């Protein structure tokens, strides 16, 4: 999971997932995966 960061849906803190899918700050279990910084190139088809 290295490099992928998540955001807690309740406290909006940045979270790294190790074993449990749970926010270490508030205990909330809904996390959003953040969009990476890479530029995406796609065909318009």
């Amino acid at each position: 999971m290295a490099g992928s960061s998540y955001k807690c849906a309740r406290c909006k803190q940045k979270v790294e997932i190790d074993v449990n899918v749970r926010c270490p700050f508030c205990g909330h279990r809904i996390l959003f995966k953040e969009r990476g910084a890479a530029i995406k190139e796609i065909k318009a088809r």
Partner: protein
Amino acid sequence: MEKIPSLQFEKEPIDKNSVRFILSNSRSAFANAWRRAMISEVPSFAIEDVRVYDNTSPLFDEILAHRLGLIPLTTGGDNNYLSRAECSCNNEGCEKCTVTLTMSVEGPLLACSKNLISHDPDVQPADPDIPIIKLASDQKVVVEARAILDYGKRHTKWQPTTVCGYKNYPSISIDARCDGCGQCVEECPCGILEISKRKVRVIEDKLDKCALCRLCEKICMNSGIGDMPAIHISTEEDRFIFNVEGCGSVSTEEIMKQGLMFLKREADSLSNEIRALL
């Protein structure tokens, strides 16, 4: 001697992007070749490559890119752009073959084609109010789109036409057995028939509206007139009614002209090939 083909345009065009005309003294082979050339052999601009810098909207990048690709972009007939295949940049994309459009929008907003900023004022979205994406607050889209010149045969987004079709010119004859029962007048979905002096006739100037559906023939047969209906629908084999509608990227005259130019180029190259063989 063969008659010279001629064009006759309708007096009042429906709008600037559509035209209806009659092609006379021609053949169905030519009419169909011209129709196909207008659809798929007239170059126009469309977005092909999209670079997504940021997209926190509910739409996936791919859907957003597809929506951008379908926006018609104005393509003047006298532009000096080359298609990617003809360009010397080796598919890299340079200023001779590529137009860059950027869109940077933040919600709450309905992002429309007018939010696409083109670096060439001649290549713009054909309509400013085509919706692209609806953004809520805190949602953001930053994209850079690259438009290239290509042909409708590659993908629909490069077609300059929306509607482009023809039909043979209708010919309606009513024989002496017509008793003026009026059933065909009621049945005709195009409303081109009327009763005059206890006989059915075609309303003046409405003959070209006939859809060739033959419902009038069918109802005439069912009225118990005999083995043959009193009204006959046929077509003129050398006369065609064309309906050409552009999407705004290329003007209708330019579509017609470039379609013909393509046919001429093809015919010339064929005759050269044949000459080389002899």
